[in-house]
């Protein structure tokens, strides 16, 4: 009878298998040569536990994530607005014209008020 061909596993692959058993909390099946390596792995796990993060960092990071989320939402809204407007070039031109007129009007009023105040103070100075 012909035996099935089994690829011999390398040392590294056998170690990986034993480490996976160790990490799963099982007793690893290992030869004598592998024992000190698995012992070193267990020592690392004991010496380097997960470190709980301080409350200050947690609060700061969560605030930043939330803030970024708000900023992203604002950018998304702006993008959506621009996309909507670009679909209707007529509306975009009209909006541009209206906003330009508004800016022009505000500037004209500011200049007029500046001149008026300048004139008044000049006359007051002459008296």
């Amino acid at each position: 009878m012909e035996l099935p061909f089994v690829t011999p596993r390398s040392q590294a692959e056998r170690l990986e298998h034993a480490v996976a058993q160790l990490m799963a909390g099982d007793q690893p099946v290992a030869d004598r040569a592998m024992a000190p390596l698995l012992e070193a792995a267990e020592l690392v796990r004991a010496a380097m536990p997960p470190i709980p993060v301080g409350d200050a960092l947690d609060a700061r990071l969560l605030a930043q994530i939330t803030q970024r989320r708000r900023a992203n939402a604002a950018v998304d809204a702006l993008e959506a607005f621009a996309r909507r407007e670009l679909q209707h070039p007529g509306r975009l031109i009209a909006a541009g014209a209206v906003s330009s007129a508004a800016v022009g009007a505000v500037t004209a009023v500011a200049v007029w008020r500046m001149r008026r105040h300048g004139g008044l103070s000049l006359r007051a100075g002459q008296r």
Partner: protein
Amino acid sequence: MNEERDLDRGRSAGSVPGGDPDLPAVRAAQADPAAFASLYRRYLDRVYGYAFYQLGDHHDAEDVTERIFLAALRALPDFEDQGATFRAWLFRIAHNTIANAHRSRARRRTEPLPDDFERAAPNADPAGHVAMADELREIRRAVAQMPDDRRQVILLRFVDDLTTAEIAAVLDRSPGAVRVLLHRSLKDLAARLSAHD
């Protein structure tokens, strides 16, 4: 080399059996960034631990952890399920951010790590506790003094519990190369620890 090539056949980098357990949360966070908070909660301690054990300083680790999560949040819309898991992707960002921190500070931390996170030994006698603390400190020192790639593979496997395939995705190596690296790293560590004894 043949060994590595043989081991890599038919295995995708960064995958885990049964698929990526974080994928539903990732999809939710891509649709609504508010959902990123759950992924952040899940990985905060692990990413912080990885940074701390690499840098050996709480302040530096906090700074780097902050940068890692903000970078992940920025890049999340680009994350695609192409074999690599979310945690492999996140730890790759962590790995690159920590490498940049190392480069920008142009120094290598090999001093003993602080012990303020050390696990308490309940009901231990003071002498026994001191001996145990010394032993744990020696192990951390031995890991800190290992070459970068060996230290990284030890931390990713035994502290962060990443699979071989995930470590391969983080370190941009083949799974076979990671298996060989892990074998060498454990041999190196065992030798360092026995030299100390």
